[in-house]
């Protein structure tokens, strides 16, 4: 029963497959909501499982199980947030759920895989499902096609580069098992070949995280895909990518400074680029895409510390990032009319139309900007400390400057919804479910800011 969360996710996919084949498509949404909540419960119940399967290719430990809980929670929230909004073609809603389940399944297996081929295949299972659901969007004619083609192409290229790097890893270590690689790799880390292999291998995950040179897909995909697909792509694969970055870089604790330098340059460029371009965005989804690029840079600050503490802060940050990003995107989902994208002007008067939603948006925007007492601040503090402790003052200062730059556009979100007065004020009715989701977001964002120790207590035992 070690595979309980994965098996359940596969069961979900099969259930939705049968629903999509069947004639009656009555209550897919409600069914999906119930089943996905159960999914969170099941992954929570299996959080302390431990063991190895398939000759050591699949490792179930606290690290992977915590990430599985996060993935299941993200999946559940995405499905709950989709609610009754009809921006996906109705006939394809069951298929949409099915591919979301497949994608989550792939990511769950990804965080447990400790063998290169399994890693690639799990990642591809997740990506293929996303390639397929990208074009499913109502009321739009062209954008989603561009988005899906871009995602497919860049995804394929980055997978190719990653495989290339893994080929080198296999070539120098003669094994695809991470346990073997970790024994042999340190001997090669002072040679270009070892660094090359590692950096190329990281590419696939940097792509998912949308770090600077691999970010080209993200603004267009965010803009073009339907809101719920965007919500999924913007958060869930990033969690798994962070997990794998931790797994792979933890093989290179003894790496020479050049590896850190490479990662540092990427992180700095990513933050600066994301934040500067984010300043001029009007479309909120595009804005969040650039904010995502900047946040990938912040997350790399923890990775490049190449220390246990750095990894810990990455886990913490990606967790809070899940909540704050989802909260921001939830505003977009609720505000959009007929599945259109929401611009900054669309936020005008939000605090009068729906105070709770405006408050949710404000909390998440302040958290994304990293202002206490939200979780975004605590996460960023951990990242800064871990990078600083290893002596990388430069990147900390660049990160601090970037925080200031990013304030402009995050504050814009708050400003639009609070201080601009619109002429037409039609109240926005939130359903009971929507209110509960908003409160969940607010609770987690504030709780992770004020009492980080409760989360840290768990995370501390999982990283290596």
């Amino acid at each position, binding site marked *: 029963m070690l595979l309980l969360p994965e098996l359940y996710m596969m069961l979900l996919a099969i259930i939705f*497959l049968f629903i999509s084949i069947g004639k009656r498509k009555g209550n897919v949404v409600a069914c999906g909501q119930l089943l996905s909540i159960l999914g969170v419960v099941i992954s929570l119940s299996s959080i302390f499982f431990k063991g190895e*399967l*398939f*000759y050591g*290719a*699949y490792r179930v430990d606290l690290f992977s199980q915590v990430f599985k809980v996060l993935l299941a929670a993200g999946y559940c929230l995405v499905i709950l947030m989709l609610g009754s909004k009809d921006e996906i*073609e109705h*006939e*394809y809603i069951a*298929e949409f759920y*099915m*591919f979301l389940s*497949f994608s989550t399944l792939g990511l769950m*297996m990804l965080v447990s*895989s400790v*063998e290169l*081929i*399994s890693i690639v*295949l*799990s990642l*591809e*299972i997740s990506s*293929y*499902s996303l*390639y*397929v659901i990208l*074009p*499913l969007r109502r009321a739009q004619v062209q954008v989603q096609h561009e988005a899906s083609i871009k995602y497919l192409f860049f995804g394929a290229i980055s997978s190719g580069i990653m495989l290339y790097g893994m080929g080198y890893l296999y070539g*120098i270590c*003669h094994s*695809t*098992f991470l346990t073997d690689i970790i024994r042999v790799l340190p*001997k*090669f880390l002072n*040679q*270009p*070949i*070892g660094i*090359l292999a590692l950096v190329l291998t990281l590419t696939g995950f940097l792509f998912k995280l949308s770090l600077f040179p691999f970010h080209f897909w993200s603004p267009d995909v965010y803009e073009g895909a339907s809101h719920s697909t965007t919500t999924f792509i913007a958060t869930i694969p990033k969690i798994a990518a962070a997990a794998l970055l931790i797994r792979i870089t933890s093989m290179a604790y003894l790496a020479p400074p050049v590896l850190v330098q490479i990662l540092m340059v990427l992180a700095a460029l990513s933050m600066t680029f994301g934040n500067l371009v984010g300043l001029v965005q009007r479309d909120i989804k595009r804005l969040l895409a650039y904010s995502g690029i900047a946040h990938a840079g912040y997350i790399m600050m923890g990775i490049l510390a190449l220390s246990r503490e750095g990894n810990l802060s990455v886990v913490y940050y990606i967790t809070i990032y899940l909540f704050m990003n989802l909260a921001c995107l939830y505003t977009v989902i609720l505000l959009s009319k007929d599945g259109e994208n929401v611009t900054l002007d669309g936020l005008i008067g939000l605090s009068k139309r729906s105070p709770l939603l405006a408050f949710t948006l404000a909390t998440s925007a302040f958290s994304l900007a990293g202002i206490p007492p939200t979780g975004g601040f605590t996460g960023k503090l951990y990242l800064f400390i871990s990078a600083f402790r290893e002596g990388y003052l430069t990147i900390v200062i660049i990160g601090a400057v970037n925080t200031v730059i990013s304030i402009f556009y995050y504050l814009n979100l708050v400003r639009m919804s609070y201080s601009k007065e619109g002429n037409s004020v039609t109240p926005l009715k939130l359903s009971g479910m929507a209110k509960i989701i908003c409160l969940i977001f607010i609770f987690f964002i504030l709780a992770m800011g004020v009492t980080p120790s409760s989360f840290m207590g768990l995370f501390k035992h999982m990283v290596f």
Partner: protein
Amino acid sequence: MTLGELIFIFLLFVTFCGALTTVIARSLIYALVGLVATMFGIAGLYIYLNAPFIAMMQILIYVGAVAILIVFAIMLAGPFYKKPTEWSKVTKFLVSLIIALFTYLLFMRIILHSFLGGQDTAFMITTKDIGRSLFDKLTFPFELVSLLIVVSIIGALMLAIFSKDRK
């Protein structure tokens, strides 16, 4: 010069000429033929490196499948009577030359600074090993492949129906 070295040089020559043809040929079909020659050359290099299985795979997959796919694509897309003129531009040629040289130097540097010493360089895998490990150590990825295929088949079907609906 031994016979082995002669064969090696011949294979290199085939690969290199094929690659060059692929890039500078004016007709797409010639370019494709060049590509096929490159694939054969690389397969030969694999045999020379004592890896017959990979060589077979190379021929099967790239020559047998990928090249045929490209032929189909060319035929479906229609005849190209007009010559592609891109390569006549000197600047583009220069740029590509610089990039190629840079990559070459980079790889030279990496290879020269890497020494795989201490490793058992006689590292041979036979088809028997591959078959065994697929059902032994690598069962999990082997099973994952089936899942991957399922996902892609369902996805392809759905997209086909979806695009039909749209029309």
